[in-house]
C-alpha cells in the first residue's frame, strides 16, 4: 500500500472532480453519496500515508517514474502528511455540509442535481489542488496546483451569486497577482540554479553568488505566497471572500485555504531557502508582520457587528500567529504553527459552518440573531462554544495548546521580535475573549426579545441548524477537544522529520 498511497492521494481528487460532474450530467441525480465516498477514500489515503510516514520514515515518490530533478517528486514526511490529513479531513466535513444546498442560502441561485454536482466537483478540485501543493517537491508544480486550488476556490466563492461574485473577482485579482509573483520568483531561482526540485535547489543555492538576484527571488516568492496566506498587510481579499462565500464552502476555505499557503511558505522559506541571507531576513520581517496582523486582525474583529465578518478578521489574526511561528522557525515554533493550523482549521471550520447556517436561517448576521439560540439548540451551541473557546485559547481545547507552544517559542526566541510576538499573542487572546464572549453571551443568556427589531413569532422553534451543518459543527467541536489532549503523539511524528530535513539542508550549506 505504501507504494500506491501517494499516487492515489493526488489522483483521487482529480478523478473525482471529473467523475462527480460527469455522473451529475449523465444521470441528473444527486451525487451526495459518490462525493462523500470519494472524500472518505482521500481521507483514508491521507491517513494511511500519515501512519506510513510516521512508522517507516518519509516517502519520496517520483511521479511518472522520473526521479528529481528531471521529473516531479512528491515528498511525504510528518509535516506534509499532517497537513494533508487536515485538508482531507476538513473536506469530508465540507462535502457533508454541501448537502446544505445553496438553495437554503437565500442569495444563491436555485439548485439542481447538475449544479450540485458541479459544486461538489469544484470542492474536489480544490482538495486536489491543496493536496498537490502539500505533496509536491517541485516549485513549478506547486504553482500549477496553487492555481487549481485558486480557480476552484473562486468558483466556490462566486457560487453564492450577487455580492459573492464581486468578492470572488477581487480574490481572483489578488490570487493571480500572488501566483504571478511567485512564478516570477521561481523564474529567478531557475535562472540561477537550473533546477525546480526543492532538494536540488537547496543543495545548489549555497553556491550561487548572485545575492541581489537571490534576494529578489526570495522576496517575490515570499510576497506571492504571503498574499495567499493573508499575511498582514496583504490580507485585503480575505474578509469579503470569507463573508460572501456560501456556507459549506466557506467552512472549508476559511479552515484550510490560507493555511496551505502558509505551509508552502514554511517549506520554501523555512527549508529550501533557509540557507540564504535574504531568506533569514524575510523570515524576521515575517515575524513582525505576523505580530502586526495578530493585533490588527483582533482589533478589527472586535469592531465588527456581523458574526461572519468578525470570524474573517479573526482568521487574519490567526494567520498572523501561524506566520509568527513560521518566521521563528525553531522546532517549538514550527510545532506551534502546525498545531495552530490544525486547531484553527477545526475551530474556524466549525464556527463558519455554524455561523453561516445561522445567518442563512435567521435571516441576518448580527450578534443579536444569536440571542436565545442556546436554549433552542443547546448541543449545536455547545459545539460552537467549544470552538469559540479554542479560538480564545481556553484549556483544554486545542487552541490553548497551540498558543502555549507559540508562547514558549517566542520566549525561547527572545529578542525584540520574541517579546513582541509574546505580547501580541497574549493580546490576541484578550481581544478574542472580547469578541467571542459577546456572541456566546447573546446565545446563551439573552432572549430574542432583548434585540429591538427581532420579533420572536417569525422564528420557528426547534433546531437551529439542519443536519448537514449540525453534524460537521458537532464533529469538529469534538475534534477540537480531542486534538488538544492527544496531540503529543502527532507532534512526535512531525517534528523529527522537520528537524532532520532542516539539519540536512544546513549541513549541505557550506
Amino acid at each position: 500500500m505504501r507504494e500506491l498511497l501517494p499516487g492515489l492521494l493526488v489522483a483521487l481528487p482529480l478523478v473525482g472532480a471529473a467523475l462527480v460532474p460527469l455522473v451529475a450530467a449523465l444521470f441528473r441525480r444527486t451525487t451526495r453519496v459518490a462525493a462523500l465516498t470519494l472524500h472518505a477514500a482521500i481521507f483514508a489515503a491521507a491517513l494511511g500515508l500519515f501512519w506510513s510516514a510516521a512508522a517507516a520514515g518519509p516517502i519520496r515518490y517520483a511521479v511518472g517514474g522520473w526521479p528529481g530533478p528531471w521529473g516531479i517528486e512528491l515528498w511525504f514526511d510528518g509535516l506534509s502528511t499532517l497537513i494533508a490529513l487536515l485538508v482531507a479531513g476538513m473536506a469530508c466535513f465540507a462535502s457533508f455540509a454541501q448537502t446544505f444546498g445553496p438553495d437554503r442560502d437565500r442569495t444563491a441561485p436555485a439548485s439542481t442535481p447538475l449544479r450540485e454536482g458541479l459544486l461538489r466537483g469544484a470542492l474536489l478540485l480544490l482538495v486536489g489542488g491543496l493536496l498537490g501543493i502539500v505533496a509536491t517537491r517541485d516549485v513549478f508544480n506547486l504553482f500549477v496546483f496553487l492555481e487549481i486550488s485558486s480557480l476552484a476556490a473562486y468558483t466556490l466563492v462566486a457560487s453564492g451569486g450577487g455580492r459573492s461574485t464581486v468578492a470572488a473577482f477581487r480574490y481572483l485579482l489578488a490570487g493571480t497577482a500572488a501566483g504571478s509573483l511567485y512564478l516570477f520568483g521561481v523564474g529567478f531561482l531557475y535562472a540561477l540554479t537550473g533546477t525546480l526540485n526543492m532538494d536540488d535547489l537547496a543543495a545548489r543555492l549555497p553556491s550561487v553568488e548572485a545575492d541581489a538576484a537571490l534576494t529578489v527571488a526570495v522576496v517575490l516568492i515570499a510576497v506571492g505566497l504571503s498574499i495567499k496566506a493573508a499575511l498582514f498587510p496583504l490580507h485585503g481579499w480575505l474578509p469579503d471572500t470569507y463573508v460572501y462565500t456560501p456556507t459549506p464552502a466557506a467552512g472549508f476555505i476559511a479552515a484550510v485555504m490560507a493555511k496551505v499557503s502558509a505551509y508552502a511558505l514554511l517549506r520554501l522559506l523555512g527549508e529550501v531557502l533557509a540557507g540564504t541571507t535574504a531568506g533569514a531576513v524575510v523570515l524576521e520581517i515575517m515575524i513582525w508582520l505576523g505580530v502586526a496582523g495578530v493585533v490588527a486582525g483582533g482589533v478589527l474583529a472586535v469592531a465588527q457587528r456581523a458574526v461572519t465578518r468578525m470570524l474573517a478578521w479573526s482568521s487574519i489574526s490567526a494567520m498572523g500567529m501561524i506566520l509568527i511561528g513560521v518566521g521563528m522557525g525553531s522546532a517549538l515554533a514550527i510545532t506551534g504553527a502546525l498545531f495552530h493550523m490544525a486547531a484553527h482549521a477545526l475551530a474556524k471550520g466549525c464556527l463558519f459552518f455554524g455561523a453561516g447556517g445561522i445567518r442563512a436561517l435567521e435571516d441576518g448576521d448580527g450578534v443579536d440573531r444569536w440571542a436565545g439560540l442556546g436554549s433552542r439548540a443547546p448541543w449545536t451551541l455547545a459545539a460552537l462554544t467549544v470552538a469559540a473557546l479554542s479560538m480564545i485559547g481556553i484549556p483544554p481545547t486545542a487552541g490553548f495548546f497551540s498558543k502555549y507552544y507559540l508562547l514558549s517559542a517566542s520566549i525561547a526566541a527572545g529578542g525584540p521580535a520574541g517579546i513582541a510576538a509574546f505580547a501580541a499573542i497574549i493580546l490576541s487572546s484578550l481581544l478574542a475573549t472580547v469578541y467571542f464572549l459577546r456572541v456566546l453571551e447573546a446565545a446563551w443568556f439573552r432572549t430574542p426579545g432583548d434585540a429591538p427589531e427581532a420579533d420572536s413569532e417569525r422564528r420557528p422553534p426547534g433546531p437551529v441548524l439542519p443536519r448537514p451543518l449540525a453534524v460537521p459543527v458537532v464533529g469538529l467541536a469534538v475534534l477540537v477537544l480531542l486534538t488538544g489532549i492527544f496531540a503529543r503523539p502527532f507532534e512526535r511524528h512531525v517534528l523529527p522529520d522537520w528537524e532532520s530535513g532542516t539539519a540536512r539542508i544546513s549541513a549541505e550549506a557550506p
Partner: protein
Amino acid sequence: MGAPRHGGTRVRWLLGAAAFPALFLGLVLGMAELPEFGDPGSPASTHVSPRFIEDAAAETGAANMVTAVLADYRGYDTLGETAVIFAAGLGCLVILAAAGGRPNRPAAGMSHPFGSVILDAATRILVPVVLLFAVYVLIHGHISPGGGFQGGVLFGSGLIMMRLVWGPAHAGDGQQPEVPAFGPSLRGSLILACAGILGYAGIGLAAMAFGGEFLNYGTLPLGSDPAHVRELATLGIEAAVFLTVAGTVGVLFDTISIGMRESGVPLGSERGPRE
C-alpha cells in the same frame, strides 16, 4: 485590493508612483545578476535540461522535446494544467448558472447568429478543415509543434465558429433553441471535458495497476520497447487533454455567451430561474 473604499484614488496613485518604480528597479537590479541572455553556459542550460535534449528521443520516443517534457517527464504538471482548464469551465458553468439577476441588455453580435448565405457557405467549407487540422495538430505533436492543448483549442474554435454563425447551443436540458444548433450541447461539452480528465488520470492509474508510479507509462503492457510504449501512452494523454480543452472551450464560450444574453445558464429543468 486592500485600498480604501472611497476617496482613496489619489492616495492610491501616490502610493503607486512610489511603489511601482521601486518594483521595476528591484526587478532589474536582480536581473542584472542573472546569467546573460542566451548564455549557453548558464545553469538553466547546463544543469537539468541537457537530459531532455539528449535523451528524450531515446527515453520517450518523442522528437519534439517540449512534448516529451510536457507529457512525460513532467506529465504530472500537465495533468494539473488540464485540471486548471477544467476548473475554469466548471467555474463558468457554476457562476453563470441561472441566478436571480436581471436579464442583460442584449450585447451586439452575441444576441443572435450572424447567419447569412455567404457566411453559411464559407463556414460549411471551413469548419471541417479546421476540425481536421485540429486532429492533425494533436497527432503530430510528437514530432512537430503541437499537441493536445493546441489541437483542443483549434477544435474548440471550430465549434465557436459554428456557434457564431448558426446560433447558440441548446443547453441540453430538453428546451430546444429556435435555431437548431450543430455540435455538442453545453452538457455534451461538459461531458467531453470530464471524460478528458478521467482519461488522463485513468492512464496514470492504469500505470499504477501495473506496478509503476502514478503516470509511469513505461509499465503499461503496450509493447516491449519502453520508448515506444511511452510514445503510445503520450498520444493517449494528448488525446485526453484534447478532449478536455475542446470541451472546456465549448463550455466557456457557451456559458459566457448565454450568460450575456439571458439571465443565466439553465442547469437542468427541475426549477426555473428565480425572480
